[in-house]
């Protein structure tokens, strides 16, 4: 009964989405206020319906209803409840439901925080989001229904892929989807503006906080995915340029370009056409990413669901959304004005150059991700495009981008003076260059990449310091504190996010330069020393988990005779899926991680053991977190809070 309620709710949601995607748009085109007024209740109604469907699927998982095909395929009666609930998005059908649910969440957010928008604009935004939602609901109901029955019911489920039985599964996909789907708001704003023909600075101002929030979610989501891969896959990697990782990274690159382009549109009125294109691009890549991962086109570490039958619908949907919006763009964009002029050397030009680099980087990732698929599809042979390719392409593109990242915020709008810039930044450059050349020697190893990484990180930080110092000294105020308080939060947010990049670069550089890996054969009582830490293999014992059996090792770690920690890596065997999993044990620290993973049992009671000493690896995720905090700080800026307060006052 419950699955049927869910199914029915989805059908109703499709009907509501049809109304939401048509009437408000017609109303906005003809100036009919009553048609436009349909948008808000339709969006909220649709949210309720999809919420019901979502809860119904959750309930089916909670009560182990193995007469539902999707539940039987992705859960098991022995699977703990929190993983059964996370199994909602464990495969294709449920992921799409999560996607649609989050889209509805964003729609409701738009209805709540859009009182200051003109009626026609809001109607168009919600109308466009309704159309996107229509596509997803139709897809689910025709070829990807999570509520299909399995008759006769299975006695027990096939269980969730053991790789996914991890706390990361509970939180990573919702976070990532919040980011992906969040770009639909920026997309809807852009399409609405194209339809209405009013691409002005106000449009950019409205769309900015939405884009930033989505970007923050995506940043955290990607970082969590990377951290999850790091401890779950057992080989200590944190980024593999896997197609699935790339699928989330491409919208991030486009989204990053979009935030910066929006800033220019907001502040200077420029780049409008470009900003609109980026908004379309960011969302298109989110769609592409969702489908790449969930359609089974890719076979990779993360591609758990495989069903190529749905490919046709997906291709058609992508063609309609992307092709349609690009057509609209080609038709409408030429009418949009150019905005303020600027000199070839100015903050605008640097931001534009950086945008170009980000988009080229994004294009290269796209090329590398899709190329093997195309070759394979055309029967031209199978190739692998992996980290060596992406590293080769990415580093030369990001180096100038990060150099400009330090320069841009210091340069004046409209026209900057290069010699003066050089004078202002001579210390920043001197200090970062000198340190970057010398520091690796102090650390005991010099390579060009090590030096380059440190140079870029230091450059970002030192230019930020120069920038803050200049900004504060130019302010009038009695004390330093009042001066600092006068600086808007958006500015601090930007500087913080940029410093987050620096932290990330330090992490990547240090771990690539100095990590130590050791594959050893260890008997009980044996020791190994890496990076100054001595690992002693104390014991191994068998344990029973809820749906697995495990061998758990105990490793005692000491440094110079002093205790550091005890680590318990596991080798698990999941009975239902008949799969062996490595659960690495990690001791995290500010300047290093210690990582132990159990390999295979060898003859004579010994085990093959993999040990890593990874300096500064947590800086990689720390940097992402700092970036996201920077984003949050930026949207908590006074101008947005004032707008929000005015809305509250208007509503009261």
């Amino acid at each position, binding site marked *: 009964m419950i699955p049927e309620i869910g199914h029915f709710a989805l059908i109703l949601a499709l009907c509501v989405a049809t109304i939401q995607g048509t009437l408000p748009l017609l109303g906005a085109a003809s100036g009919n206020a009553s048609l436009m007024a349909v948008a808000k209740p339709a969006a909220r109604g649709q949210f309720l319906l999809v919420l019901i469907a979502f809860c119904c699927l959750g309930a089916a998982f909670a009560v182990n209803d193995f007469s539902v095909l999707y539940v039987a395929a992705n859960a098991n009666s022995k699977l703990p409840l929190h993983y059964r609930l996370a199994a909602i998005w464990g495969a294709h059908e449920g992921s799409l439901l999560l996607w649609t649910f989050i889209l509805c969440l964003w729609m409701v957010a738009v209805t709540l925080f859009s009182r200051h928008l003109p009626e026609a604009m809001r109607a168009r935004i919600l109308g466009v989001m309704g159309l996107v939602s229509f596509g997803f609901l139709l897809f689910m109901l025709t070829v990807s229904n999570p509520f299909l029955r399995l008759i006769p019911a299975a006695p027990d489920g096939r269980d969730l892929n053991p790789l996914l039985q991890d706390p990361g599964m509970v939180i990573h996909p919702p976070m990532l989807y919040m980011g992906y789907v969040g770009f639909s708001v920026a997309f809807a704003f852009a399409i609405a503006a194209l339809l209405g023909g009013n691409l002005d*600075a106000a449009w950019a101002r409205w769309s900015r906080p939405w884009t930033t929030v989505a970007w923050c979610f995506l940043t955290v989501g990607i970082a969590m995915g990377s951290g999850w891969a790091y401890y779950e896959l057992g080989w200590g*990697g944190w980024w593999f340029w896997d197609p699935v990782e790339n699928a989330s990274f491409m919208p991030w690159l486009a989204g990053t370009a979009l935030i910066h382009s929006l800033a220019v549109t907001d502040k200077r009125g420029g780049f409008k056409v470009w900003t609109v294109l980026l908004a379309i691009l960011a969302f298109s890549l989110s769609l592409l990413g969702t489908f790449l991962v969930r359609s089974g086109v890719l076979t990779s570490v993360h591609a758990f669901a495989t069903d190529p039958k749905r490919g046709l619908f997906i291709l058609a949907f992508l063609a309609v959304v992307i092709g349609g919006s690009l057509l609209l763009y080609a038709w409408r964009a030429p009418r949009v004005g150019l905005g303020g002029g600027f000199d070839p050397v100015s903050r605008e030009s640097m931001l534009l150059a950086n945008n170009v680099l980000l988009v080229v980087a994004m294009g290269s990732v796209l090329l590398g991700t899709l190329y093997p698929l195309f070759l394979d599809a055309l029967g031209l042979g199978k190739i692998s495009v992996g980290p060596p390719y992406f590293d080769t392409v990415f580093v030369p593109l990001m180096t100038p981008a990060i150099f400009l990242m330090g320069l841009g915020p210091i340069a004046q709008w409209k026209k900057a003076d290069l010699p003066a810039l050089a004078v202002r930044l001579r210390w920043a450059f001197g200090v970062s260059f000198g340190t970057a050349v010398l520091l690796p020697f102090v650390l005991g190893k010099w390579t060009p990449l090590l030096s380059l990484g440190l140079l870029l990180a230091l450059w970002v930080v030192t230019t930020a310091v120069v920038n803050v110092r200049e900004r504060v000294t130019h302010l009038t105020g009695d004390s330093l504190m009042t001066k600092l308080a006068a600086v808007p939060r958006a500015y601090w947010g930007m500087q913080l996010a940029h410093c987050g990049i620096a932290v990330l670069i330090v992490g990547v550089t240090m771990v690539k330069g100095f990590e130590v890996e050791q594959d050893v*054969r260890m008997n009980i009582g044996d020791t190994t020393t890496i990076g100054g830490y001595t690992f002693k293999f104390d014991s191994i014992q068998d344990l029973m988990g809820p749906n697995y059996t495990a061998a758990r090792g105990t490793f005692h770690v000491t440094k110079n005779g002093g205790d550091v920690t005890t680590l318990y890596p596991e080798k698990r065997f999941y009975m239902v899926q008949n799969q062996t999993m490595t659960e690495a044990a990690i001791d995290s620290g500010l300047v290093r991680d210690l990582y132990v993973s159990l390999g295979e049992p060898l003859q004579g009671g010994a085990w093959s053991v993999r040990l890593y000493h990874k300096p500064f690896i947590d800086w990689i995720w720390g940097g992402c977190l700092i970036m996201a905090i920077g984003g949050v700080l930026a949207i908590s800026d006074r101008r947005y809070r004032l707008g929000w307060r005015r809305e509250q006052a208007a509503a009261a």
Partner: protein
Amino acid sequence: MKRVRVLLFMCAVIAPTGVWADEAKPLGENPQVEARLKTLAVELRCLVCQNQTLADSSAPLAEDLRREVREMIAKNMTDQEIIEFLVARYGDFVLYRPPWRLTTTLLWLGPFLLLLVGGTVLVVTLRRRQKTLPETVLSEEEHRRAERLLSKGNT
């Protein structure tokens, strides 16, 4: 005799455990061979895994292949020869760095073409912008609205 036993016991307790335990042996015997294996294996694909390098994989087939590569290194084959041998057996699929062929030309040139196009568009845009520096960006109405917003913001 008893004293000696006590002494021995004391030693066992007091002495750092490391002294008594054996130093674990690396899986590969020759560190130089291992180092070369590592540099080769990070660019090779484990053929039975979804997407993992030969260095990272713990699949039995990867284990076998690593052993074969070790043997080839021991036979003094160059990296080039080893890679040629693997490609002959498994095809280009085994290489994470796609080799330069007719079919991969676009893959390798693509990013540079993109950069070229992006750079050209950038230069053209900047030139055009410089020529047409329209100063009146905001309309009168927009100016007034901005004023209004600003004055509200200051209260």
